[in-house]
């Protein structure tokens, strides 16, 4: 909203228009290819899928804006979900939610401390956290599956309010909140400043290290929250929860046009990226393409999206 009031730089305009075109092309293609695509049931499925994807990728967007990366989101999500699920299944709903969010926050803060204060490159620190969180998830679950949650909790992932899936409402609220934080608060502007030029950001008085710890902490917290939504949706949790999410999580951010070099992009783009991924997955299911191909599609999409953005930028700016 606020972004569109200002005149868009060419590369941002390219992202907006190319992604809109991709969504339009996908919708047109799938509408022709499958009679079931344009049904209201399927629209609900796509929207819910996009909302879940957005919740997964929202925290990472903030990290990438600072020029960092968080490869541990999927694993932290899984660990938080397992810890939360164990408590929720025993009837401690509030304790379970707090525990899941707490585990996510703790993992994220450790990431932030390693990156900002110890000086480990972000992707090696968070890649290490990926394996630590996965490992702790295995230890915690011992190969078991927890399933069957309180219906009140399940509503978070599977429920409806006024005909709209609750995850979609949750994602919409988060989208709006993060957009306002990024564009209208000193905290949000600091993230762009750090991503654009960390030295300049520090010299203008931004506490860059503290901001980095906070942003990785938020990423972990949101991973914990996404974990709750995921297990509420599937009504089960095991140590495999969150596995194989790494690629789609990063894909949505990159598809959204947020630059991996930091300082450029935004949360609206990630919502768009999540919608494109949801359309692709839904389309592949509609066309009966085996799910084994989904990772290929995600990988190719990531590379093509970055290739398109980098090529455009090199030619026109």
């Amino acid at each position, binding site marked *: 909203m606020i972004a569109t009031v200002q005149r868009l730089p060419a590369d941002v305009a390219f992202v907006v228009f190319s992604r809109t075109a991709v969504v339009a092309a996908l919708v047109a293609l799938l509408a022709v290819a499958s009679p079931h695509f344009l049904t209201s049931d399927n629209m609900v499925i796509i929207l819910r899928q996009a909302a879940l994807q957005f919740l997964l990728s929202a925290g990472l967007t903030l990290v990438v804006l600072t020029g960092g*990366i968080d490869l541990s989101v999927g694993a932290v999500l899984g660990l938080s979900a397992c810890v939360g699920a164990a408590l929720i299944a025993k009837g401690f709903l509030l304790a379970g939610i707090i525990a899941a969010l707490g585990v996510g926050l703790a993992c994220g803060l450790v990431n932030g401390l*390693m990156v900002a204060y*110890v*000086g*480990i*490159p972000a*992707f*090696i*620190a968070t*890649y*290490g*956290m*990926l*394996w*630590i969180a*996965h*490992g*702790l998830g*295995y*230890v915690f679950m*011992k*190969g078991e599956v927890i399933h069957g949650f309180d219906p009140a909790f399940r509503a978070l992932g599977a429920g409806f309010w006024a005909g709209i899936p609750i995850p979609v409402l949750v994602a919409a609220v988060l989208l709006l909140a993060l957009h306002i934080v990024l564009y209208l608060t000193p905290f949000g502007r600091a993230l762009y400043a750090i991503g654009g030029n960390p030295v300049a950001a520090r010299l203008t008085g931004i506490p860059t290290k503290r901001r980095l710890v906070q942003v990785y902490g938020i990423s972990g917290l949101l991973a914990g929250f996404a974990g709750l939504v995921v297990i509420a949706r599937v009504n089960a949790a095991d140590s495999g929860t969150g596995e194989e999410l*790494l*690629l789609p999580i*990063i894909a949505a951010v*990159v598809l959204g046009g947020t630059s*991996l*070099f930091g300082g450029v992009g935004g949360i609206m783009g990630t919502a768009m990226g999540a919608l494109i991924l949801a359309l692709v997955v839904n389309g592949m299911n509609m066309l009966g393409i*085996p799910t*084994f*191909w*989904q*990772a*290929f*599609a*995600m*990988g*190719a999409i*990531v*590379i093509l999206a*970055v*290739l398109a953005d*980098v*090529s455009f930028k*090199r030619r026109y700016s």
Partner: protein
Amino acid sequence: MSSLALRPGHYPGAAYLFVLLAAAFAFATPDFASARNLSNVGLQAAALTILALGMTLVILTEGIDLSLGAVLGLAGVVMGIVLVSHGASLPLAIGAALLVGLCAGALNGALIAWAALPPFIVTLGTYGMAQSIAMVLTEGNSVTGLPPAVRWFNEGEWLGVPIPIWAVLATLGVTYVLLYHTKFGRYVFAIGGNRRALELAGVRVRLYLAAVYAYAGLLAALASFIMTARMNAAHPTIAIGLEFDAIAAVVLGGTSFEKGRGGMWGTVVGALAIAVLRNGLNLIGMSAEWQVAVVGIVIVAAVALDALRGRA
């Protein structure tokens, strides 16, 4: 990140870790220091060392390759399918697998060198693609019923030395010559050190950079022979996560993510340290669940100590 650089008289974290772990495990369990177990450690380290040597070159150019584990899995699957489904000869299957590794690496290299995309995003993308193709080819299952000849890659011996060790020695020899005695090697260090200067000097930097990734892919295929032979089956996800061990071996071995500082010998020590860690945790009876977390913690802690020490 100059803190992670290898300097004279400044041993990489891997050396300390290796000595510390070896002493601790030798003390904790008499089985560790037995000749039989030590040769087992060597065998376990073989595939990792080969993978990590390719990763060393990649990291020296300020790059990263997250796809190596998936490429290893794909190469093994291709070898298995060529052997089992098509009944082809072993040399043909080996050739096919090496070609797969080389092509995957070359694709990474082309996208990174000519399209100038960030290495980790390119290799994350090809990780998904390689993993996906391996799954589609096998429908998610293992390729079993391999001809007995394949096991030679793990059990075979020549002059009393196991074949995996020969494979490591051969890779070390080739990598040593490439890195320290050819123009290619000097450019590898220089690409990380000062790529711009190299380009201004008229060096075809992109070609050499692409070649580095192709070499890493080729070595991943080589490592797949050992792992496939050890399992006596080709599984698409056999090496998922092994790229983390390889990156850790390189970093613990003192090669920096910046400025082309480091070298291959530290990587060998790093790979040995990680193999000792995994072997020792098995011997003291730690459950597989805990091992994943403990290996992650030890590696991150060692990298953190290296970073902090270098800063002081």
